[in-house]
């Protein structure tokens, strides 16, 4: 038995057994049992994924399990990477969930049974080897996650609304994937992936383009890419926090997996415009997502919008890889795809950490609104440290985690200027510099966003009584955060532990022999004169900081010191009301990007009864709506509602009218038959 077989079989068995156990065990121990079982499931998943990435693979066919199509599973290197990421996130979320569900009243059977099953469904999606299996796993994943999103619908009405959005959008996405893959299957011998791979070589460009665009719509909606992102900042924050982490860090990845699998593997690379489309969608999503996050004042919503940004960056990498591959530069394509896949891993690590920390804040204060937080450093030091680490990891600054993958991405994009006369040279020559600019702008805005989230949310003085009374979370939650934090640190300092494997995966996915990335401590890229050593960089940074601090101390020690109250312009002791809030922090950015975000402001001045020269109250409201949603979704929703109203006129309640519909339709069909025969 290979590592992969043991891992995948173990994950399946552990997940299902945990779900069964959660049904029977008493409420006292249910959280512990379900959490531990999920950790085992995730651990087995990591084992299977790592096994698949290091060369062994597994194929299982169970034709009797599902009617008509049967179940067939194959775990190869590409699928292994996504299985490993999902498993890793599940381990952290499982540990965290033991305490979180107990203290939030989520230890009823429903949530505890569905949670491990959700993990199992997510582990199976990248392992599916036929269209039937893939779609079944995809739908199971969507349904289980939907059940988890609406877990708290009795407590908060927003949850039900978020659940509706999610249910509709995820099923529209499913329908898109279904249509695309069925069109594809119609050209193949059967619905297994090898048959599709064979058929992909002979597909006409028109049919292949149709399959790609339709499946892209479905996969993009799962990854929260513009303009199909509207559900993500609603559903991810409203789920219980450990589920948010699992959704935001792991469940968006199958979108990327599907895109790479269908685009590169099954359809065999396709044409230039496909990948330019992917690149453009990714760039727009990255900038727009982080801009929305920068304006957001809700901690979990901000993290959800940052997911759109990061998936956008991943799509930039995938799109660039496609552009390079179609124009013949396969080595550089390998680097770009490796960057994208590494960013998937990094994003999973830091988004898990951030969502778990946000859940810890919610646990300790009951608040998610940044404008009502602040001063958490004193009450919850571990959570503050965890969120600070996560914020550093999410900002593309050394020694952050995201820095490594974004550096790789930028390297690929910068070296992507095509040689004169290459095919598709003009488009690439225009697209690459624009993509570099978009990635750079995104990185800058991400720094501002996470400085805001950390600075306003955790430092300074408490802005509300709830924030003042914050208390630290129980040990299981801290352990969950700690695991994710360790993963972030390792990925930031020693990315070379995973990069060679990622490079191999991207090489396999693109059909290139040699790995794109190598090196033990220093990251070396194939075909590009670029090298980076995050560990050395961090050491140098630390040395510089120590040196500067030491120098300042030495210089400052010569002067006499005096302790005094902070200068407050004579206005008395400074209160929390005088602090910078999240809204005010974002105000300059909002001014700069006024034309993009279009904030809605409303000033109401109430005058005194006696005289209109005296003002009684001034009310100021500001809202940053999602502009894409307003322009794209609201007209569609209004049109659907209008159709519904028009349709009601057909159904007046008269029995005769209903019978008449049947009669006239029957007669019309008969006449049609008689005439056309």
């Amino acid at each position, binding site marked *: 038995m290979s590592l992969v077989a043991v891992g995948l079989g173990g994950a399946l068995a552990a997940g299902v057994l945990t779900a069964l156990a959660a049904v029977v065990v008493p409420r006292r121990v249910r959280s512990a049992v379900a959490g531990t079982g999920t950790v085992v499931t995730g651990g087995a998943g990591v084992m299977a994924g790592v096994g698949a990435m290091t060369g062994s693979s597994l194929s299982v066919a169970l034709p009797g399990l599902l009617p008509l199509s049967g179940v067939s599973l194959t775990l190869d290197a590409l699928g292994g990477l996504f299985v490993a990421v999902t498993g890793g996130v599940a381990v952290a979320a499982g540990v965290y969930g033991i305490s979180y569900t107990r203290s939030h009243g989520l230890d009823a059977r429903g949530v505890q049974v569905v949670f491990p099953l959700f993990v199992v469904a997510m582990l199976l999606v990248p392992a599916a080897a036929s269209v039937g299996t893939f779609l079944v796993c995809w739908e199971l994943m969507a349904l289980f996650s939907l059940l988890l999103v609406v877990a708290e619908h009795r407590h908060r009405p927003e949850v039900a609304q978020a659940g509706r959005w999610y249910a509709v959008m995820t099923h529209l996405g499913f329908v898109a994937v279904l249509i695309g893959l069925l069109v594809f299957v119609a050209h193949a011998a059967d619905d297994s992936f090898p048959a599709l791979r064979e058929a992909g070589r002979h597909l006409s460009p028109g049919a292949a383009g149709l399959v790609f665009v339709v499946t892209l719509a479905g996969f993009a909606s799962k990854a929260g890419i513009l303009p199909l992102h509207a559900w993500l900042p609603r559903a991810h924050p409203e789920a219980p926090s450990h589920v948010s982490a699992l959704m935001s860090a792991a469940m968006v990845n199958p979108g990327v997996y599907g895109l790479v699998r269908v685009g590169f593997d099954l359809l065999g690379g396709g044409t230039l415009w496909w990948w330019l489309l992917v690149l453009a969608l990714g760039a727009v999503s990255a900038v727009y997502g982080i801009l929305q996050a920068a304006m957001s004042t809700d901690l979990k919503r901000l993290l959800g919008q940052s997911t759109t940004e990061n998936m956008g960056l991943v799509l930039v990498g995938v799109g660039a890889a496609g552009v390079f591959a179609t124009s013949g530069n396969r080595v550089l394509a390998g680097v770009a795809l490796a960057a994208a896949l590494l960013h998937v891993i990094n994003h999973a690590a830091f988004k898990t950490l951030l969502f778990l920390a946000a859940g810890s804040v919610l646990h300790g204060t009951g608040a998610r609104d940044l404008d009502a937080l602040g001063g958490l450093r004193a009450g919850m030091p571990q959570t503050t440290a965890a969120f600070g680490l996560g914020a550093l990891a999410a900002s593309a600054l050394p020694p952050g985690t995201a820095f490594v993958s974004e550096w790789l991405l930028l390297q690929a994009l910068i070296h992507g200027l095509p040689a004169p006369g290459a095919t598709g040279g003009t488009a690439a020559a225009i697209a690459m510099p624009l993509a570099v600019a978009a990635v750079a702008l995104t990185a800058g805005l991400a720094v501002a966003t996470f400085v805001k989230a950390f600075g306003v949310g955790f430092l300074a003085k408490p802005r509300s009584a709830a924030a003042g009374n914050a208390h630290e979370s129980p040990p299981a939650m801290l352990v969950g955060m700690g695991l994710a934090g360790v993963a972030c640190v390792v990925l930031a300092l020693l990315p070379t532990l995973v990069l060679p494997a990622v490079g191999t995966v991207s090489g396999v996915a693109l059909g290139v022999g040699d790995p794109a990335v190598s090196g033990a401590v220093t990251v070396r890229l194939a075909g590009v004169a670029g090298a980076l050593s995050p560990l050395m960089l961090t050491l140098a940074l630390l040395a510089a900081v120590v040196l500067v601090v030491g120098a300042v101390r030495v210089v400052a020690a010569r002067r006499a010191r005096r302790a005094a109250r902070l200068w407050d312009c004579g206005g008395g002791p400074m209160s929390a009301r005088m602090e910078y809030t999240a809204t005010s922090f974002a105000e300059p950015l909002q001014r700069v990007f006024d034309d993009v975000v279009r904030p809605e402001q409303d000033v109401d001045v109430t005058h005194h009864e006696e005289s209109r020269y005296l003002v009684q109250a001034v009310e100021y409201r500001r809202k940053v709506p999602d502009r894409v949603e307003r322009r794209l979704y609201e007209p569609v929703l209004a049109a659907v509602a209008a159709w519904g109203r028009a349709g009601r006129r057909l159904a007046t309640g008269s*029995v005769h009218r209903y019978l008449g519909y049947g009669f006239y339709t029957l007669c019309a069909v008969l006449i049609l038959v*008689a005439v056309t*025969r």
Partner: protein
Amino acid sequence: MNETLFVQLLDLACGGLLLTAVLVLWRRELVVIIHVFAVQGAALAALVGVLAVHEDSIELGAVAAGVLVLRAGVLPYLLRRALASAGEARRETRPLVNVAASLLTAAVLTLLAYAVSRPLVELAPSGLMSPATQAIPIGLTVVLIGFFVLVTRRRALSQLVGFLLMDNGITAVGFLTTSGVGLIVELGVSLDVLLAVLVLQILTARMRETFGDTDLDELRELRD
């Protein structure tokens, strides 16, 4: 039975079916409609009986007897009982389409049925069963007229008769195309119809108790 007599009897029975269906459209007295329906049941039974004699099939003969009992005896009896308890409303006062137009529509429906069933008729082997196959359009016409009654008549009882007319038509088409559905199948269908009529009778009684009328358009307000 020689071939000529068989054809004449079959055509007579089919003519009876069609004529009674049109009469249901023509008459407004509910009592008369029920009588006409009973006659149609008898015509249907006669049709099956003729087929049974022609084929020398005892099983088919039993089916004919069953059809006679059910469609000319039990169902009209049940309908009459429903009518007796209905009180005042004994006339189909205001059909949605008036009688003259209904009769014209029946003619059009007959033409449509003939046009549609041409391929079925052409399928028939030019031999033993061809007279029966030739009569398929009659059965189809009865189905369509039954549906038309359902759509245009207001009283619950007329609706019931329309539904039963459709069923008669479907049964007739069944016998004419296959020269004898199995006894079990026919038994099942008959029980189904009987049950439906019983349920609808109860519903009619309930309707009258609740609304004091059996005009289906009164049900309009129940929605939402």
